[in-house]
């Protein structure tokens, strides 16, 4: 089971770029890396998914080194509304491969 390790919390000022790194030393060949965002009293929301190198969408970028033992979620120019918990998941098809963990609580400061 490819568990993940993330910082428990991070603080950032508005307008800054935020990078959240996730370690997944036991990642398997078939595993993808997925990040979710969760606001209080809501279910998690998909942000981005990747397998290797770099993936970018309208809200974030995901950097994955060649060994795939870690990944970094990059949020450009964060705003107060980005205050949330961010989860890194590693797994392939089948829920028994998915482990949400406790996530990283990001607090954006004015």
């Amino acid at each position: 089971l490819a568990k993940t390790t993330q910082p428990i919390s991070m603080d950032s000022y508005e307008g800054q770029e935020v990078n959240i790194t996730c370690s997944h030393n036991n990642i398997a060949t078939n595993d993808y890396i997925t990040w979710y965002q969760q606001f209080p009293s809501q279910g998690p929301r998909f942000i981005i998914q990747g397998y290797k190198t770099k993936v970018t969408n309208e809200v974030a970028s995901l950097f994955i080194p060649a060994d795939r033992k870690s990944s970094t979620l990059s949020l450009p120019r964060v705003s107060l509304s980005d205050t949330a918990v961010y989860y890194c998941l590693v797994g392939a098809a089948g829920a028994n491969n998915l482990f949400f963990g406790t996530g990283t609580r990001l607090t954006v400061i004015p």
Partner: protein
Amino acid sequence: GAGVSQSPSNKVTEKGKDVELRCDPISGHTALYWYRQSLGQGLEFLIYFQGNSAPDKSGLPSDRFSAERTGGSVSTLTIQRTQQEDSAVYLCASSLAASGRAGEQYFGPGTRLTVT
């Protein structure tokens, strides 16, 4: 289109009573997941349904917990003889389980269960 819906949104029950939580996934999604989230904690996987295959029950915490999915759509999570430690938010998610990778999961708003 409609997202994942869950009912009830809140449930208060007495210790020892049975409860049923309902999840309506997004139409056409073949995979359905149940998670539990205690206050301030991460998500704990409970059970997973994929199409008509037998469910993966590896996350169920005890035999008081069971779930079924009728007709590959609506799912019900049942907790028998509830205990205070069952108090949590129960989240349901569905996805198009793409071949070879875990599909993007769409979560419902959750059911907040309080056992008194």
